[in-house]
């Protein structure tokens, strides 16, 4: 089986300078329509959409705390977004960010709880980060192995493995990693304070956003400024041509997926060390999928991903206020996100040229 995902990667230089303005306007329109449609949804439920959108903006840009919350949501989406965008450039569709994040969180919590308890911050945090990256990489490694040895389509395996990862985390927080003091609540013991990421005063915002942004730059640099990146883009554009140019295609697929898993795993570690402090069955839930959406909204370009991840982060935060403010389920923001992406996907071909 070989479902070729044609044309998923898009070459960086397709925009001509002169044509830039018009597509940008078009793109803005495309982004507005979903908000209008979602507004109709809201009216249906007796919520005033204009008021709601205003309060959404206010709750996110109104004060430092709100803005910090948006960046907090943006951080994991950025990383799982990279975990989708990087493989997409190599012609792979990795939807496993969700599971890779969960296993990354599991690995880093395990290390933090059992080995790193007495470590100072400067050594403990990087080690915990490495553990998270390793966890994500291992999980992505399963997909990579199945792709290379079994020729199984990575989209389907990584998606199925997400469910397995969720249950694996459940298995651990109900079992080996359960906090003995938790009175039967399923979560892990808290990690040592020295292992927590430094926080900006007056918010919950932690250093994770800096790590994520740095990694965005690294991935961008690798893809567009290095030989290996050139090879990855060739592979993503036409794997037959890559094969005929002497690239070790399977090896590249393998390492790209491993790298993607590591990025998502780091997101898991950041969730633990940044916000939660302990592993719960719900840690990082849906960030993998949000990252995937963000990557596609950015046409898998790392720099544009920074923007789309921020937008999705904002919508997620707004989702919380939606639930509090209007009594709608927070999951209804998925409708909005999906609508945005529908319009992107639906108009993509023409905007790309």
């Amino acid at each position, binding site marked *: 089986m070989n479902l070729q995902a044609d044309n998923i990667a898009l*070459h960086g230089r*397709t925009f001509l300078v002169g044509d830039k303005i018009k597509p940008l306007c078009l793109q803005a329109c495309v982004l507005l329509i979903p908000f209008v449609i979602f507004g109709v949804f809201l009216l249906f439920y007796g919520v005033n959409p204009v008021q709601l959108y205003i309060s959404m903006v206010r709750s996110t840009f109104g004060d430092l705390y709100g803005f910090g919350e948006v960046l907090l949501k943006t951080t994991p989406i950025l990383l799982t977004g990279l975990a989708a965008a990087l493989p997409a450039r190599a012609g792979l569709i990795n939807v496993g960010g969700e599971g890779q994040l969960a296993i990354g969180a599991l690995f880093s919590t395990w290390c933090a709880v059992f080995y790193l308890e007495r470590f100072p911050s400067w050594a403990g945090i990087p080690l915990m980060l490495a553990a998270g990256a390793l966890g994500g990489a291992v999980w992505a490694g399963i997909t990579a192995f199945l792709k290379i040895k079994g020729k199984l389509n990575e989209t389907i395996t990584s998606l199925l493995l997400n469910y397995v990862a969720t249950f694996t985390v459940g298995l651990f927080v109900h079992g080996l990693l359960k906090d003995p003091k938790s009175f039967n609540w399923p979560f892990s013991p808290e990690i040592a304070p020295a292992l927590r990421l430094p926080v900006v005063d007056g918010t919950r915002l932690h250093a994770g956003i800096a790590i994520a942004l740095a990694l965005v730059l690294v991935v961008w640099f690798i893809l567009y400024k290095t*030989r290996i990146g050139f090879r990855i883009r060739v592979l993503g*554009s036409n794997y037959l041509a890559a094969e*005929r140019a002497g690239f070790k295609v399977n090896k590249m697929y393998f390492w790209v997926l491993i790298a993607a898993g590591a990025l998502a795993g780091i997101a898991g570690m950041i969730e633990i060390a940044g916000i939660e402090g302990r592993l719960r069955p719900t840690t990082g839930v849906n960030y993998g999928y949000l990252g995937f959406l963000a990557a596609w909204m950015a046409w898998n370009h790392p720099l544009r991903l920074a923007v789309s991840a921020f937008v999705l982060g904002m919508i997620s935060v707004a989702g919380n206020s939606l639930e509090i403010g209007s009594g709608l389920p927070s999951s209804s923001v998925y409708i909005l996100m999906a609508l945005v992406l529908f319009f992107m996907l639906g108009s993509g071909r023409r905007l790309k040229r």
Partner: protein
Amino acid sequence: MKVTRKSADTCILRTEGLTKRFGSLIANKEIDLEIKPGSIHAILGENGAGKSTLMKMLYGVYEPDGGKIYMDGEVVSLHPPIKAKAKGIGMVFQDFRLIPAMTVLDNIALAVSDGGWRLKRKQLRERILKVSAKYGLSVDPDAYVWQLDLGERQRLEIVKVLLVPGTRIIIFDEPTSVLVPQEVESFLRMLDLLRKDGYGIVLITHKINEVLACADQVTVLRSGQITFRATREEGLEEEALIAAMMGAGTLKPVVKHAGDAKEERQTVLRIERGTIIGNHGETVLKDIELSLKQGEITGVAGISGSGQRELAETLFGLRGLSSGRLTIDGKEMTADTKSFMDAGVSFVSEDPLRESVIPGFTILEHMVLDGIPMKPKRAGIDWPYVRRLLENSEEARALALADADRRADQLSGGNVQRMVLARALIRQPKILIISYPSRGLDIGTTHTIQQQLVTLAERGTAVLLFSEDLDELFKLSDRLIVLSGKRLLGPYRPSETNAAEIGFRMLKGESA
């Protein structure tokens, strides 16, 4: 030359001033044509003369930009093809319109709709067998199309067209290009049967001897215009046809020096008792012996699908030998493209549009993939260096390569072929594996490419040339091998054999 009223009455189809433009290119200019029942009308011309455009207008794929088509004296529109089909025009395509994953019967059922959603399989099978017996077109209704060779596929296409109710005109597009000489004879016999049964036959070809053998009427096209026409009664002269096809400025022949040098050249690549397995685990070639020699062009003949693709892929490390040895300069190779490249092998694949073109990348960027070395500049690539090498390359100039900053996915097929070839040549490879270099190209480009291959061989490269054009193989090769029945036959000296012999081996193997 106006078609006279009188003859028009007996026509099934007649065109008047048919014109088709693609942008600034006029592919067909004011073509007048008539197709009569029970007669073979040959349309003769070189590649790129406008034959296929004309036939696509007759089959309704293209809508003419000017001119009229009459059937039974009335103006008709044939676009889209379904209209042409309903009016009794059948077409046997060169790249057959068949679905490999389905059986012969299913493929025919797709084309022959006799109403009703339920398939009357038994009835259809009987009709297939009846028609195939009548015209000597043996096909097995239950075989899968992927199991058939090209000759069988063509027979299936013809049966399909004949089974469509109301077919009066059958257009054949280069029908003999997929056939070996022996099959051509039976094909011509079948054409004769069809003619006797009153079908109007259009034969599109560039082979003059076929025209001389069977046509009742000939129209010669060059650069989209009619340059000559004649009927059998008026007499068909070979010289006149050639002159009409080629025009005044015929091309110089490909220059080839020292073709029959007697001294034994050095072997650079050798396969000993090699067996190659195909994609579905089937044995494609068994116990083959092959050696490529420095400075020699080895031509590979064979019916399409006889293992050409697999052999080429094996010689570039894309596929491993399942048994046997492959050595380059005495060193044993394993299936690893990189090490083949390092050993000096270059590969121009059968379908460069699919296998070599990277959408969104420029010609320059394509050059560093198995062409100009990917010279490092810090973490990246030294593009100015690559550009310099490309601009100074004699080969790129000789091939009239398009601008280095053009995007490769926006190039025409001919330009893609030039790009891929230029890339392979720039490397000055020790061994060049090249598949169907002139497929679908116009005569000028073909000539350039052939000349480049000869020059390359003279500089010492060992060339393995796959081609379906026996003329090309005889013209260029120092030695010929034939792939047939999972065997590799030969090598033969072109001077010691002929096309008929090679054709026989392609079809029947060594046994005779």
